[in-house]
């Protein structure tokens, strides 16, 4: 009654009720991930998103905060995904000049690569007995995450699993691309870049930029075109895919 100091619990109740806590958690975790990524000379294994997710997950566990409550606050960050998707028009526009004289092979490779990513992922996962939710999330995982999540949402697949698979795909692609491409004897930078962009979207693209600017430009063109193709074609194909 005379006691004027605020008990720690009260502060806690106040903070956890506002979006601030979720926003601080999200941004701090990403910041830590980003600093580590930079320190590692952009090693694809030190992925800032993976680190951030791990840190946030541990914090939620420690604070005993349900995910739904966290998302209530973090949805402000989540909302910007749509805006970021629209702004992808700019890198795609910049890459369009790279299409000159190569429209046919690039589009053919894009369609072939896009189909391969869906068929191989869903096929292998199904063959090894994965359930429906996992199969659905495999469908758009090679499309850049913001678009993949939008597509998954519309088709009733889990946007969360899609995002997780997309991030893992990006990490794997950024690490493995070099070996696959060397193994196939691919030498032209534009071809190497485009292949990475189709398979491993944003992370592959940033990897490609760090290796060679021409590879980076083509990777970002591939990522953008795959995003558009995925958004248009996957809903049309969806009726045929997971009918297992």
């Amino acid at each position: 009654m005379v006691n004027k100091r605020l008990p720690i619990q009260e502060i806690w109740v106040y903070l956890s009720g506002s979006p601030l806590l979720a926003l601080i958690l999200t941004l701090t975790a990403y910041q830590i991930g980003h600093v580590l990524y930079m320190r590692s000379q952009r090693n694809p294994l030190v992925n800032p998103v993976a680190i951030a997710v791990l840190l946030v997950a541990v914090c939620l566990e420690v604070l005993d905060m349900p995910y739904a409550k966290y998302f209530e606050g973090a949805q402000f960050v989540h909302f910007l995904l749509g805006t970021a998707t629209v702004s992808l028009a700019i890198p795609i526009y910049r890459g369009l000049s790279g299409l000159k004289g190569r429209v046919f092979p690039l589009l053919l490779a894009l369609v072939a690569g896009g189909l391969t990513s869906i068929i191989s992922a869903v096929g292998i996962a199904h063959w090894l007995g994965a359930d429906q939710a996992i199969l659905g999330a495999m469908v758009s995982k090679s499309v850049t995450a913001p678009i993949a999540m939008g597509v998954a949402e519309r088709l009733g697949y889990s946007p969360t699993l899609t995002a997780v698979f997309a991030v893992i795909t990006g990490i794997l692609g950024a690490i493995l691309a070099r070996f696959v491409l060397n193994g196939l004897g691919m030498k032209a930078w534009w071809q190497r870049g485009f292949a990475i962009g189709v398979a491993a979207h944003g992370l592959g693209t940033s990897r490609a930029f760090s290796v060679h600017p021409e590879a980076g430009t083509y990777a970002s063109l591939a990522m953008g075109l795959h995003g558009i193709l995925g958004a248009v074609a996957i809903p049309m194909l969806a009726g045929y895919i997971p009918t297992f």
Partner: protein
Amino acid sequence: MIPGLVQILLWQGAGELVSHFFLPHIPGPVVGLVMLMCYLVVRDRVPDSMAVVSDAFSQHLGLLFVPAATGVILFLPQLRQHAWAVVLALLGSVILTIAVTALVLKFAGPGADGE
């Protein structure tokens, strides 16, 4: 920066409307993306203020999917149960996708001789 952000938000809004009324199976932001891209092709240049916003987004795109990706904690039991299927599907798929895309480019195009 603000004029660029306003324009991008307006394109997003237009995309949402078109998607809602005409193309219900394509996400609104993707429709906005395509419309903005056509606009840029017609204009033949990217306004500076828009470039600033776009560069900021693409540099830290990853941040934006942290909230959704953290939802993976709800799926942990399911993922653990199918861990092998998930790992091998992702691994196999990314290798095959890179290989197929690269091989098609190698055999389908001009300039395939490389540099």
